[in-house]
């Protein structure tokens, strides 16, 4: 008995060591950028970890929010990410439900095809996509950028939601069908409420991908009209004399929405994301 309790103790010590190192590596960088965002340029350049209290300031945020165009880009990002989330959700819910509930010819091929889009190099796709968006007169438009993002999220979203729907018992659909519900009623009133956690994760996924994208925005956006926060923080951090306090403030503002949404879905995130992977067991 004493050997098991001893090995349990060793396990606990080891686990806490891993937890401590993980916090240091994964969380500290975020805290550090937040900390930096409240310091003056001069204070940052002293290289001190704990500066005197008078070197802390709200000036960086004031500058970013009132002097620069950051709020405008922030609003662009919100508009694009919201549009992407809404549109991709509608399309992928229908698609995933169709794939999950109907016997269709070539279904496995379709699923394989959807999954295999993950191996298409985005840098290759973006070339014709740019010309296509250009011809559709959607260059430098919110819709053009959103379209690019929808393509980015759709395959994974369909795959993931299909896995989620597969885990919902068919009996639910069948009894609703006997009650005289048509397909849309079944989907909207019976399946969706049960699948709500999975839908939330899918929505979160598309929001985060759209919000964080740099590649597509950098090509389809041509002006302030569609530039997003990722473009701006990249530009701010690439200038000759970098105002690190302001860069930090802009970075924190860029992170905040994703972290805020993350706190809502956090406990379901992995279950939802990996639904496609777990169900095959």
């Amino acid at each position: 008995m004493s050997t098991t309790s001893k090995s349990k103790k060793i396990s606990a010590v080891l686990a806490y060591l891993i937890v401590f190192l993980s916090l240091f590596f994964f969380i500290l960088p975020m805290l550090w950028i937040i900390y930096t965002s409240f310091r003056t340029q001069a204070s940052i350049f002293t290289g001190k970890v704990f500066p005197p209290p008078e070197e802390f300031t709200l000036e960086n945020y004031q500058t970013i929010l009132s002097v620069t165009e950051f709020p405008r880009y922030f609003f662009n990002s919100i508009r694009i990410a919201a549009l992407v989330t809404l549109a991709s959700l509608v399309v992928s819910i229908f698609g995933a439900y169709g794939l999950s509930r109907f016997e269709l010819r070539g279904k496995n091929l379709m699923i394989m095809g959807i999954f295999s889009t993950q191996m298409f190099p985005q840098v290759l796709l973006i070339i014709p996509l740019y010309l296509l968006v250009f011809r559709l007169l959607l260059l430098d438009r919110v819709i053009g950028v959103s379209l690019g993002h929808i393509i980015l999220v759709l395959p994974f979203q369909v795959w993931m939601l299909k896995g989620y729907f597969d885990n919902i018992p068919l009996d639910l659909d069948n009894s609703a069908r006997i009650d005289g519900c048509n397909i849309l009623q079944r989907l909207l009133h019976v399946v969706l409420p049960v699948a709500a956690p999975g839908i939330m994760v899918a929505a979160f996924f598309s929001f985060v991908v759209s919000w964080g994208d740099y590649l597509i925005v950098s090509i389809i956006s041509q002006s302030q009209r569609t530039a997003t926060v990722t473009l701006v923080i990249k530009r701010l951090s690439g200038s000759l004399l970098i105002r690190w306090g302001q860069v930090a403030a802009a970075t924190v503002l860029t992170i905040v929405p994703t972290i805020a949404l993350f706190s809502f879905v956090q406990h379901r995130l992995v279950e939802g994301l990996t639904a496609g992977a777990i169900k095959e067991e």
Partner: protein
Amino acid sequence: MTETRKGQLLIAPALLIMAIFTLYPLADGIRTAFTDQHLLKETMKYVGWANFQRIFADEIFWVSLYHSVILTVSVVLLQLVLGLVLAWAMKQKLPGIRLFKSIIMASWVIPVAATVIMFKFMAQPDIGLINILFKLTGLKGLNRYWFGDMHAALPFIILLHLWRNVPFYGVAFLAAMQAIPASYYEAAEIDGARAWGRFIHITLPGIRGMIIVMVTIHVLWTFNNFDFVYLATGGGPVNATDVLPVYVYRQCWDSYTIGYGAAIGTVMFVMLMIYFIIYIRIYEKRAGAR
């Protein structure tokens, strides 16, 4: 309308969008690879295999390919191992672990551009946290801009990937581990299996499906990843961190030679397709053997 027809109708929009905006661009991208198309020129002509011959003699292509392979292999392997370690730690029933689990995936949700800035700032000489910590521990001679260092830049890119993805691996593996019936472990305990034996014979086979999915998808995502390298170093210093996606991007949007860029992109696609086919072959063989 039959049920099948209704099912087809539900899938149609998704398939249509993917066909127009993913399959067509893929086909058109491959077509472009055989042209001398230039972003600023109106005319273009087919040049046969000329772009591919140029690739063969292009030193930067080979360097980028080498970095892409090194990066993908080391990132995925390290993520796999560290993800397992993290999952093991989170599986222990200890106070505080729940809270830890709830925050640890934060690194996965924030924009890559923000991650890169955080690390670029920490890697600054004199004022960056990394160099401050080195100074405090007496390693002042290491003070430098780490992304600007010929030898450290690529390891730092690997570090960025790990920072973003290891928690995701850990939490995903944990979810798979918790789906393994406790009775398996109890039986092993009666047989006197040690912790390591239980891990090898029960845990690993139990989460095999999850490992395969995570590795497959991350090989594709890492090989195709553009923004970590582009935003952190742009491929530099010199070509120390150049990877294929970044090289394609520069060819297309800095040099405007989209024909040549598309050719390199096509080579990337072919390589990934070979990987994918091998993977499916092995997977089917395994499934058949069981």
